[in-house]
């Protein structure tokens, strides 16, 4: 204060000045500017003091606020965010919360070659200690003029200890997270796998790579570990028994399109995908497209019923094969007589289905198949999705062959979703593999009445038709067999089959579709050397349903209960003379 006064008042306070002017002017006059200056100084000082004071009060208030009132939350928040910014890939869990993909912390060995004294000796020791290391390569690495080289990633604790005991200078470890799949091959094709830097390069891991890397909440799949296991074991057994080249299976919830289990065999261990040949990593259920054969008759019948082309009382003459553009369409075990629509279905008559499709027409058939998702890739959350092979020219010939599942190749997943739509009340749901992505609403394709008839037809096929082996007492199974000849070098090969069965349960109020397929099965003595869907694939579905129904909370019922019988029986579908109204005659 005094300092300022002194400096500012300097010209006036100086004694000589005052004395000099005193003689000429009165003291009052000479004092006035001095007084005014002091006043100005005081005002300035006051303003400065107020500003400084206010700032101090503000700072003080903030300090009190942080220290005593709200500080904890803010500080805690800061620390919390600082912590969670650590990058770890999110876990993947099944629909019941069981971990199916997680991370383990592992040590990775690196070297600083500048500090390695004897690279050759070190290389020999390392190659001896760690399997899979090449001595020469390691020596070359250790001689490089770099600060950092990876020697081996993801060591086990025991290996780490062994390397430590070697006591080689210039080696060190870095802790890294490695993706781990506790269930090995069980869900291999759905989960996919990651590369050495934990980036998803196949399956769910690839599709949700961004989500898994940024969001820490586990990703919940729609798959059920237990159901997956039962399906996988049943398929593996059948594959072994029938010396099949491969197998695929799907269990799907018909009410929302959620995939409960999806198996493709042979499979691989996602913990070490490089060890198995690429062929095993191919997902036959979603990526493979096949001519699936007679299972397509479900759709042929549903379309014809829904479009009002036939009723369950109509039928077709199946005495003679269909001859069309040089092809002859025949039945495998033909009845060679007039067949009603239910009979065409349960005996799986190609001739009957062909006539039905011809009456329906290519345009209607195509429109329905499009709505059922069979003409474009399935929308499932996987990168490995096959594009269906659809005829470029959809003429009468194609209409006939597609009626019994030839001339069109779709993935098992697509067929399963389409079959679900035909029996769940007529609503198509896009298949999904993530729990919360279920498409609850779906799109209507068939009327509820058509869907009811389809349930009766599928049930009849298991009770009296080609699908008897799929029956699981108490669970009201319905379904349809399919056996398609594979295309060889010179046309279709009679001995190479894709044998499948698509089953639904419980038929009174369908909840699940179960699909099973064997690629090139061979008949055994047990199957009387047959290798068709009814002999090799239907038993798989029956067995799987028996095992998974209790897991999925489906309570068995007495199949003989009158109300159940009434809901699922088609009365008088067998030909009587007066019922022989040919739909093809009626249509023209």
């Amino acid at each position, binding site marked *: 204060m005094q300092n300022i006064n002194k400096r500012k008042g300097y010209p006036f306070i100086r004694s000589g000045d005052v004395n000099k002017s005193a003689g000429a002017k009165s003291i009052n006059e000479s004092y006035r500017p001095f007084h005014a200056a002091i006043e100005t100084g005081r005002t300035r000082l006051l303003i400065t003091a107020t500003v400084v004071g206010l700032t101090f009060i503000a700072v003080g208030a903030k300090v009190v606020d942080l220290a005593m009132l709200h500080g904890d939350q803010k500080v805690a928040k800061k*620390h919390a965010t600082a*912590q969670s910014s650590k990058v770890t890939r999110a876990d993947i869990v099944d629909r019941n919360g*069981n*971990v*199916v993909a*997680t*991370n*383990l*912390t592992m040590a990775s060995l690196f070297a600083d070659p500048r500090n390695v004294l004897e690279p050759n000796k070190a290389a020999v020791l390392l190659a001896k200690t760690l399997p899979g290391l090449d001595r020469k390569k390691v020596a070359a690495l250790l001689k490089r003029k770099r600060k950092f080289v990876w020697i081996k990633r993801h060591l086990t604790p025991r290996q780490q200890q062994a390397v430590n005991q070697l006591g080689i200078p210039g080696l060190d470890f870095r802790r890294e997270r490695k993706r*781990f799949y*506790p*269930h*090995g091959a*069980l869900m291999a094709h759905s989960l996919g796998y990651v590369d050495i830097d934990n980036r998803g390069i196949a399956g769910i891991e690839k599709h949700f790579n961004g989500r898994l890397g940024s969001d820490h909440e586990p990703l919940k799949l729609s798959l059920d*570990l*237990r159901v997956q*296991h039962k399906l996988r074991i049943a398929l593996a057994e059948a594959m072994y028994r029938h010396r099949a080249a491969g197998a695929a299976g799907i269990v799907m919830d018909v009410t929302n399109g959620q995939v409960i289990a999806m198996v493709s065999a042979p499979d691989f261990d996602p913990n070490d995908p490089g060890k198995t040949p690429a062929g095993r990593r191919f997902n036959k259920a979603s990526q493979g497209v096949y001519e699936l054969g007679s299972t397509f008759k479900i759709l042929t019948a549903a379309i014809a019923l829904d479009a009002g082309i036939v009723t369950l009382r109509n039928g077709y003459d199946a005495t003679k094969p269909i001859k069309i553009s040089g092809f002859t369409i025949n039945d495998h075990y033909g009845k060679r007589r007039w067949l009603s629509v239910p009979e065409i279905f349960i005996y799986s008559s190609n001739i009957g289905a062909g006539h039905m499709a011809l009456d329906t027409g290519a345009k209607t058939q195509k429109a329905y198949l499009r709505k059922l998702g069979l003409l474009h890739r399935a929308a499932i959350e996987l990168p490995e999705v096959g594009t269906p092979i659809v005829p470029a020219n959809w003429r009468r010939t194609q209409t006939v062959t597609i009626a019994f599942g030839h001339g069109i190749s779709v993935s098992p997943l697509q067929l399963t979703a389409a079959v679900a739509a035909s029996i769940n009340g007529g609503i198509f749901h896009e298949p999904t593999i993530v729990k919360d992505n279920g498409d609850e609403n779906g799109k209507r394709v068939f009327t509820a009445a058509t869907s009811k008839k389809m349930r009766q037809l599928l049930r009849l096929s298991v009770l009296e038709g080609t699908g008897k082996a799929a029956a*699981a*007492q*108490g*669970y009201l199974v319905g379904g349809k067999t399919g056996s398609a000849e594979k295309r060889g070098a010179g046309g279709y090969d009679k001995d190479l089959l894709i044998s499948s069965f698509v089953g639904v349960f419980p038929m009174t109020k369908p909840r699940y579709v179960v699909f099973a397929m064997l690629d090139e099965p061979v008949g055994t003595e047990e199957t009387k050397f047959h290798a068709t869907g009814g002999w090799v694939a239907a038993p798989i579905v029956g067995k799987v349903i*028996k*095992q998974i129904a*209790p897991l999925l909370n489906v*309570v*068995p019922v007495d199949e003989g209960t009158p109300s159940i019988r009434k809901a699922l029986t088609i009365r008088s579908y067998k030909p009587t003379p007066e019922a022989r109204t040919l739909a093809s005659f009626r249509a023209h």
Partner: protein
Amino acid sequence: MKALSLTVWLTLATMTGYAMFHITFEVERLEAELRDVNKLTEKEKDEIHHLRAEWSYLNRPNRLAELTKKWLPSWTPPKTNQITRMDQLSEKISGSDATAATGAAHIAKTEHRLKKPERQRYAEH
């Protein structure tokens, strides 16, 4: 007056200085503690993570099936007629006393057949 003012100011300055250093050191100490706690939490979390992974690994359906085969050899998958709803249970029991009796006898027999440690295991379930 001057002396008093000086004393007050000096005391205040000393107190502020002391308080400042005290708070600084306290914050540093607390931060170090927090770091330690965070490190421990991380470690525990990591451990829980590993245990969860191991739990999942030990619960592989394949392994459980093998263990069941080994330790509960007489167990078979439930038959359709053994499954029912809770509300239908009383009906089922009174309707088939005979079956229930055979069932109980079967269980008793199984228990008897098992060796002692196995029997203990069996009783735990």
